[in-house]
């Protein structure tokens, strides 16, 4: 991605969820005469987190940016705010050589499930681009959208993941994302 100005930051805000957080962060960026280049937020278990790429024409630094965000929000000391310089990473270039797959994991909850699967994926250079996990009663569901580098034999990955699931008492599936796109969206494939 590209930013409007060269002096860019990635900004992360964590707080309990309530109205006005996005407004406060946007206010802070405006006061510093900056631009919001990209943003994404989510709420989990009553907690809010926001990741934003912002850029500035002037000489803003990380400390000034985080201070301005806290100042813009009433009770700003309750916000966890982190800002660090934004550098376009080399990973984006790899996206073109990877196919997107979805891993779904269902079973009785126990500690270490995310660790086992994420460790396996990391070992295969598989990038997790979206992760959802939820405990309901004793059951746990984990859904991970991943980029699998071209060259891996999918049936071998499936065999590994299914075996790992068996050991942990989980049903594990690895499926190409287009089956989910085709059955839910107006387009057939991504």
């Amino acid at each position, binding site marked *: 991605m590209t930013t409007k100005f060269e002096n860019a930051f990635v900004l992360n805000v964590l707080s309990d969820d309530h109205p006005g957080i996005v407004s406060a962060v946007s206010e802070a960026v405006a006061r510093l005469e900056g631009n919001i280049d990209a943003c994404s937020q989510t709420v989990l278990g009553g907690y809010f987190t926001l990741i934003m790429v912002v850029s500035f024409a002037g000489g803003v630094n990380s400390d000034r940016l985080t201070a301005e965000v806290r100042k813009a929000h009433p009770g700003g000391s309750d916000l966890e705010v982190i800002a660090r310089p934004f550098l376009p990473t080399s990973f984006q270039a790899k996206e073109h050589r990877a196919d997107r797959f979805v891993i779904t994991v269902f079973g009785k909850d126990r500690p270490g499930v995310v660790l086992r699967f994420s460790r396996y994926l990391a070992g295969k250079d598989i990038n997790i681009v979206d992760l*959802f996990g939820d405990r309901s009663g004793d059951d746990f569901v984990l859904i991970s959208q991943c980029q699998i580098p071209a060259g891996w034999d999918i049936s071998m990955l499936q065999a590994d993941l299914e075996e790992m699931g068996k050991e942990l008492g989980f049903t594990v*599936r690895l*499926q*190409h994302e287009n089956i989910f796109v085709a059955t*839910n969206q107006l387009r*057939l494939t991504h």
Partner: protein
Amino acid sequence: MLSTDEILSTIQMLHSEHLDVRTVTLALNVDECAAPSADLLCRKLHQKIVSGAGKLVGVCNRIGRKYGIPITNKRLAITPAANLLAGHGQTAAIMLAETLDAAAQECSVDLVGGFSALVQKGISPADAVVMDSLPEVLSRTKRVCASVNVASVRAGINLDAVGRMGRIILGVAEATASQKGFGCAKLVVFANIPEDNPFMAGAMVGSGEPEAAVNIGVSGPGVVASALKRKLQLGGKLTIGDLAEEIKITSFRVTRVGELIGREVAAELGVAFGIVDLSLAPTPQVGDSVGEILRTLGIAKVGAPGSTAAIALLTDAVKKGGAFASSSVGGLSGAFMPVSEDAVLSEAAATGSLVIEKLEAMTSVCSVGLDMVAIPGDTPPETIAAIIADVMAIGVQNQKTTAVRLIPVPGGKVGDKVEFGGLFGTAPVMEVRNAGASKTFIDFGGRIPAPILSLRN
């Protein structure tokens, strides 16, 4: 990015409700295998099929794994065998069928369709060879499926061919008496046979089709029934229109699975992607039933008044959802009512709530016709022919495909249950009322003229 709800609903459809791709059918034009000697014809045919379809099963399995969806059947359809048999006799016809059987086995495909003849206006000598060899062909081969088109909107109904098929169906039943007449499960009599049908036993490659194409049949009765039950459990005041909407949405999703798989299989095989057939194809598995959908729509006993209206609603909603999901819809695309293959229909037939006449009425608003219906083995050939004529008339007058797959069970009496096994299920032997009362009509022969369709009332 996909949402969690999207992923979970697809997982439910695929894995809890057992959606599968019922069939990937590779359609092959084999007309170039024609040869003056039967030996050469069979050698060319074997080579053509093995080189065209050798990779089919492997490709389907790999793509099925990639998307996490089983492809239950991999099948082949060929151009009508009668095209190859011009100038040949029955010995060549049987050799040809055995070659098809062996080549299909070599490629690990489940069934091969296209031992067919198109006789709606007249029977050529090659057509006669195909038709008359059916008892021997269907008893000597395992994977060969046959179809005969005896009627069309433009030609009318060839009553000579209908009468002949009445006798031939009994001949096939006798030739496979040790299997309770099972050979008849591999033989369909059609009006307006589709050129691109992927479902057996009626798959064949009609004129105007590409040299090779992949045609897809999806399943989905279980998925539709589950979606309706979920909707009903949510409570609230629902009208029948709300349920039709739910069927439409489900059909869209089911069809998309077929489209995705079909396009990828075709690309891998380097052939054209043909069509997705929207037909809901039931299996004997509990819940995977068109009858169960009717029950969910409020018809307590399938066959009761309201059944025809309910199946009309179902078929129409399936078409609407499917047509939006794919621009390549074809084949039969309706609701299948195969009595033995659908546990609820089979039970309804066994208890007497579903009778042949009601199945005929339902045929007029859905697809296919009398499918996998077991009848007593002593039913007269003219009565079988007259049943065929009735179903053909529905197809011809309504400009739609209709078909008959009757199984006269040798020695079978009304109320007997015949176990065919696997996807073919259990068939109760159904009563044929007024047997023997149609002989004079059938014996007239000739052709019922093509209908006038401009006066629509």
